[in-house]
């Protein structure tokens, strides 16, 4: 079952990371496997800190055995390795017993610490496990070269391990999970083909609104705003759809909420994100969207931020300013 060709299979199926970054999974595996090392780590990220995404929770609740199986495959494929599952504090409480039973004697440990959104970023996760400040590290070195405790480290999301299990069992059909939240009838997590357009996903799940609406696609904070005429395309980033009723949503307030969220969750390390988000928040609180300054701050965030979080901040604001005013 644990065939040697798992990496080839991942490559053939074109599986990409499901945490949002969309990096080819097989490349990471190969990098960690091939580098010289006396010890390697595998980290399963179940920190799920973005608002309105509950996909990892759904998978841990319904398919924990698949996740553990995926991890065991990784342990086999990557020599001299041990694994850690990083759970946010709530998931840890909820799934600890179940997971421990499934892990049994395998070299997999559970790890949890309170904290938020930034843990989606790989090197932040490593810093937290090592007891360091919860913030991204300078890259390079990449975790695949020097990760946890300086050892090559493979970091994949819960969903990725789920699909690895499916691929190993030849049960993978190019599906992914979608988290649908907001003003919809059937909130929840759904497994559907990754080729589905946003419209199809909403229709298939009985969630296509019959009122004037807009969406935030890809995450409840960092996702892009989309309007009904843009829905004939599949989701590129994180599989999350948040539905807003256009009539009773104040876009300024929505944006102010994001700014609050990011100023709380960012690590303050780099100039554009620390100072830029502060200036966004300041402008939005005053209801001023002095266009030029805001545009410039968003540009600096997108182009010069230290980590993916900062880079992603411009997406919701930019799309909201374009489409909601």
């Amino acid at each position, binding site marked *: 079952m644990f065939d040697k060709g798992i990496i080839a299979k991942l490559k053939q199926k074109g599986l990409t990371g499901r945490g949002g970054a969309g990096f080819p999974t097989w490349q990471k595996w190969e990098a960690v496997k091939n580098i010289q090392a006396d010890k390697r780590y595998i980290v399963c990220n179940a920190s799920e800190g973005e608002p309105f995404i509950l996909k990892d929770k759904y998978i841990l609740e319904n398919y924990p055995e698949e996740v553990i199986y995926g991890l065991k495959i990784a342990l086999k494929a990557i020599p001299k390795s041990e694994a850690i599952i990083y759970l946010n504090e709530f998931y840890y409480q909820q799934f600890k017993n179940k997971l421990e039973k499934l892990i049994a004697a395998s070299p997999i440990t559970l790890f949890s610490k309170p904290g938020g959104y930034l843990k989606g970023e790989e090197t932040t996760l490593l810093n937290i496990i090592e007891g360091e*400040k919860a913030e991204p590290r*300078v*890259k*390079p070195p990449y975790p695949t070269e020097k990760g946890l405790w300086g050892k090559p480290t493979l970091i994949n999301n819960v969903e990725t391990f789920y699909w690895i299990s499916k691929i190993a069992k030849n049960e993978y059909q190019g599906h992914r999970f979608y988290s649908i939240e907001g003003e919809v009838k059937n909130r929840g997590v759904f497994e559907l083909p990754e080729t589905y357009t946003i419209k199809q996903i909403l229709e298939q799940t009985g969630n296509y609104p019959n009122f004037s609406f807009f969406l935030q696609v890809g995450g409840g904070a960092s996702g892009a705003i989309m309007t009904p005429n843009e829905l004939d395309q599949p989701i590129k980033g994180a599989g999350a759809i948040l539905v807003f009723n256009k009539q009773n949503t104040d876009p300024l307030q929505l944006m102010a909420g994001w700014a609050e969220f990011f*100023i*709380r969750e960012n*690590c*303050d*390390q*780099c*100039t*554009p994100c*620390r*100072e*830029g988000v*502060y*200036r966004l928040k300041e402008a939005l609180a005053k209801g001023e969207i002095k266009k030029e*300054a805001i545009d*410039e*701050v968003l*540009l*600096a965030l*997108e*182009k*010069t*931020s*230290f980590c993916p979080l900062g*880079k992603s901040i411009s997406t919701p604001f930019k799309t909201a300013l374009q489409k909601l005013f």
Partner: protein
Amino acid sequence: MKKINITIDGKKIIADEGQTILEVAAENGIQIPSLCYHPDLSVKANCRICIVSVKGLTSPQTACSTKVQKGMEITTESPEIAKLRKINLELIFSQHKEECADCVWNFNCQLLELSKKYKLQITRFSDRKSGFPIYNFGPALQFDSSKCIDCRNCVEVCHKQQVGHLQIVSKNNLQEIIPNDKNPCIFCGQCIIHCPAGAFEGVGEFEEIETPLADKNKVVVFQFAPAIRTTIGEEFNLPPGEDLTGQIVAGLKQLGANYVFDVSCGADFTTLEEATESLERIRKNENLPLFSSCCPAWVRFIEVYYPQLIPHLTTARSPHVILGSILKSYWATKYQIDPVNLVVVSIMPCVAKKYEITRDELRIHPTESIAANAPTLFGEADRIPPVDYVLTTRELAKLFKKHKIDLTKIDPTPADDPFGNYSGAGVIYGASGGVMESALRTAFSLVSGGQKIQIEFQEVRGQKGLKTAQVDLNGKKIKVAVANGLENAVKIIQGLNKEYKDYACIEVMACPGGCIGGGGQPLPTNASVRKARAEGLYKIDEKKELKMAHENPALKKVHEEFLTTEEIKQKICHTYYSAKNN
């Protein structure tokens, strides 16, 4: 090292694999603006000013953290890069209170230069940090947190110094650098040297000196440290390492100094005491290894963090304090100057020295001026400090500039007799290893009974953080170690029961490279600057005929006329230490 071909701004360059874009560019004369990068420290890549474009990549890359790769095509200036740098700089200025006229960078500041280059609207955003507190770190430094641009260099360097007085906290969801009083500051001033925003400065205003200078009743004596003669030129656009000994004297005279002496002479006094003490301890095998004590930041580090090691410190006073003590006793008596009207000003590479002169342990009794058998005319409370003011190299440069004294134009003058005489050993005190070398020269000479002895101790020279040597002292093998930067000192401390167990003498300087890298020195300070400054000092020693501290005629004379009993020597040349918790 593998060589690779890259291009920067169209220029073909052969680079070493493993270098960063910033390093390669600098080596090839291409300036990429940078703020948070300091070659002494880890790459933090947080200011996001050094961004450049790399062909094939959509987002700009930070030059300080991106390593060159084969075939890389890099563009360092373009309209897009300029625009992004401008925005980030404006954001940085929005958290930096400008006080350029009163800044350690003396208008030699990256921020200011960049604000001109990119035509910033520096008031585009309101000052986020106006009203942020100014913290005093004892009688040594001041931290104006409203100037901070959050690069974290000071936090890193303070940690490297094994102190951790500076810390990052989160207030209202924003990071803030604040002092942590649980880990008292040792006043090394390395935060000053590593802050791109000039948020730290020594305490006091350099203009204070003008008051005693203008007072007819005061006799003002300036004495200047070994380490400033090859650094102060940098403030006048000379390269580091240029010897300006005579120019400094001339400049001080122009300012109105009544006398100018050389702390290198004080160093000779310190050396003799320290060498004698170490020979004594080696003979008795007592409190070994002996620790040097001329760096007040190191002394304070021991008193606060390792008080159990206090007995290891030599009790010899530091060079400017020993000379100040002799000035206010022996010399004042000789010249019939009331010590109370004698104002001693030390020009130092250092902010810890500002603290040092406030140490109660160093005060002397004016009656000591009339030697040991004088009647006691004064009470304990009348004890006076051996040194009244400490100005840093930077502050002296400001003072000179204010008085239109240009060190590049002035004719050199020799320092005054008798304490303008110094040995080459006294001059190298300013570089890491210098104290040890000076002490070895004297110790060897004292035990050799007149034979020709080794003068140069190459093993203890140089910019390495931790240096060791084994020397043969009249048939006895003696191990010595030299540390600069407290991370290296702590390595020795931790090895005292292991690899450093049988060491006899340890020299420690808190600053990287020793005092030539001190917290009062011109900016920028980095490894190559420190190297050039130290080489300048060794060149002076090379040329100097008088090589040994104890052969300094001024010292000999004071020993014959004044330091004749153990009691008076203890009072004038030695001090004591005690555990401190703040």
